[in-house]
């Protein structure tokens, strides 16, 4: 559905050339759900804008839905849907008018555009707002209208740029319900950007971790987490003096990747933590070390990002969420 080779975009800013996307090589199969995950400024939006014909590449090629984005942008546009970061509907327009215009722009007959608009308004909990002026809608309502506008022509390939930024959990779930329905019922391919790891984790079958204009990891969320981060076992010993010896023993265990000590806590990074934890307990018991408490944490994509870059996605993405200091995992 999407094939890119060496796709690159640079900008001139203050006399310097900034490479927003550097040599993107990508093959996305029809029917997949793919997330671009990375901090702000990583090149997610620029990549999406090139794939949706909104921005010409500086170098490289991209074929989207069978058409080259530079040679045949109209061919690409007919086959894709797009949800930008901004508001899709004009402030002074009525909700229904904007939806019908969208349908008409994709060549639907007026009656058909109208019928589909009605269905989408119902589906996205916007019923009763058809005659309202867009500017009077709440933020959540506007975002759902954006989604409706992107879905009105039932595209085989849908691009979503930060679809749920600024939305409450209910609206967020509602939006994903409709996007995934398009995916399930019509087999649409979904490509989205996000800096919410939960969103990539929950909905994407494949995650492209992006940083500084490059894809630094590319796999299913499960595999990324298992291979790049692993589970985290945290435990404390009954006697503080045992902390050091316990850590030393933990390092000798099978499949353990890294052991760190932080305050009185021993942190063991390993694969298959659920199997490893009882092994660890038996081993420490045999050595006469009494364990006081244990905790097993499944990895998040944030741990993946941390492993790859040494930074957490949260501190790169939004500064207002406090983060615990990690030491290289």
């Amino acid at each position, binding site marked *: 559905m999407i094939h890119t080779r060496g796709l690159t975009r640079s900008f001139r800013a203050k006399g310097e050339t900034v490479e927003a996307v550097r040599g993107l090589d990508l093959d996305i199969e029809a029917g997949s759900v793919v997330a671009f995950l990375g901090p702000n400024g990583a090149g997610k939006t620029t990549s999406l804008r090139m794939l949706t014909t909104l921005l*010409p590449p500086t170098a490289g090629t991209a074929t989207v839905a069978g058409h080259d984005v530079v040679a045949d942008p109209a061919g690409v*546009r007919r086959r894709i849907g797009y949800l930008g970061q901004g508001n899709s509907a004009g402030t002074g327009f009525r909700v229904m008018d904007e939806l019908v215009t969208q349908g008409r722009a994709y060549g639907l007959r007026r009656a058909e555009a109208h019928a589909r608009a009605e269905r989408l308004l119902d589906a996205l909990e916007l019923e009763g707002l058809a005659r309202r002026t867009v500017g009077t809608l709440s933020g959540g309502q506007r975002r759902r209208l954006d989604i409706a506008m992107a879905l009105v022509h039932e595209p085989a390939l849908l691009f979503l740029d930060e679809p749920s930024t600024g939305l409450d959990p209910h609206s967020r779930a509602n939006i994903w319900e409709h996007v995934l329905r398009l995916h399930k019922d019509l087999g649409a391919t979904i490509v989205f950007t996000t800096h919410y790891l939960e969103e990539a984790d929950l909905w994407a079958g494949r995650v492209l971790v992006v940083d500084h204009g490059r894809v630094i990891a590319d796999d299913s969320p499960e595999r990324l987490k298992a291979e790049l981060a692993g589970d985290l076992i945290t435990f404390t010993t009954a006697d503080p003096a045992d902390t050091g010896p316990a850590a030393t023993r933990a390092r000798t265990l099978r499949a353990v990747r890294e052991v760190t000590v932080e305050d009185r806590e021993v942190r063991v990074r390993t694969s298959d933590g659920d199997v490893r934890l009882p092994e660890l307990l038996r081993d420490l018991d045999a050595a006469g070390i009494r364990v006081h408490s244990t905790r097993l944490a499944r990895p998040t994509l944030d741990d993946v990002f941390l492993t790859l870059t040494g930074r957490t996605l949260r501190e790169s993405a939004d500064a207002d969420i406090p983060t615990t200091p990690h030491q290289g995992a």
Partner: protein
Amino acid sequence: MKVLTDTRTAFARELKPELRQPVGLLFTMMLPFLLLALFAPLLSNSGAGPGAGGGPAGAGSPWQWFVPGMLVLLGLSATAGAGASLLNEISSGAFERLLVTPLNRAAMLVGRTLKEVVVLLTQALLILLLLLPTDFRLHLPGALAGLVLLGVFGVGIGALSFTLALHSRRRQTLFYGVQQVVFFPLLLLSGVLLPITEAAAPTWLYVLSRINPVTHVVEAERALFDGQLIESVVLYGFLAAGAIAMLGVTAGIRGMRNASA
């Protein structure tokens, strides 16, 4: 065929809010309306108006001389603001949403421009209707030709305004800066408010007003609304308006094509 359908789609989108809220028309015609109400009455006593701009001397009512200029001012002010609405859509994301559709780029420009022309001509008709009870005399064939000329002029100014907006998409101040710098000189140098004649004006000012294409549109409108259709000023007016329209539409379509390039 697709260009026509797309033009209709773009035109219909822009026109709908105007139809839903026709009162909006009145706000953008405030300036010429106020000038007609509060400035034009002065002309009858000063004797400044009649006789200038190609019309015969002493043609009676000051309205006869002043109103055609006000229609041109209407075209210049209301239509030039068209770009501001596009600029808003560029920053909100609504324009991007349209760019990503397969809508033909030329149709996007032409549809928007046509809507501006429809609004402009409606406003012009409204002004003419308001003047019917006064001693303003409406020569029907001339007035119709005058409205056609105004429409052509409106296409040009509207399209140029959209072009400017498209080029200002990364720094919005450019739009308002250029608009302010261009609007008033064009207006004042066109002799809309007071005639700029060889006798009354300093040579440099007169030359500048001759170079200003809007002057020729104003003079043609005055001749037409005076019932004189076969005049060289009318030809020059149509040539000037046609040139502005050609320039505007060409630059505007190119701007639309480059908006996503």
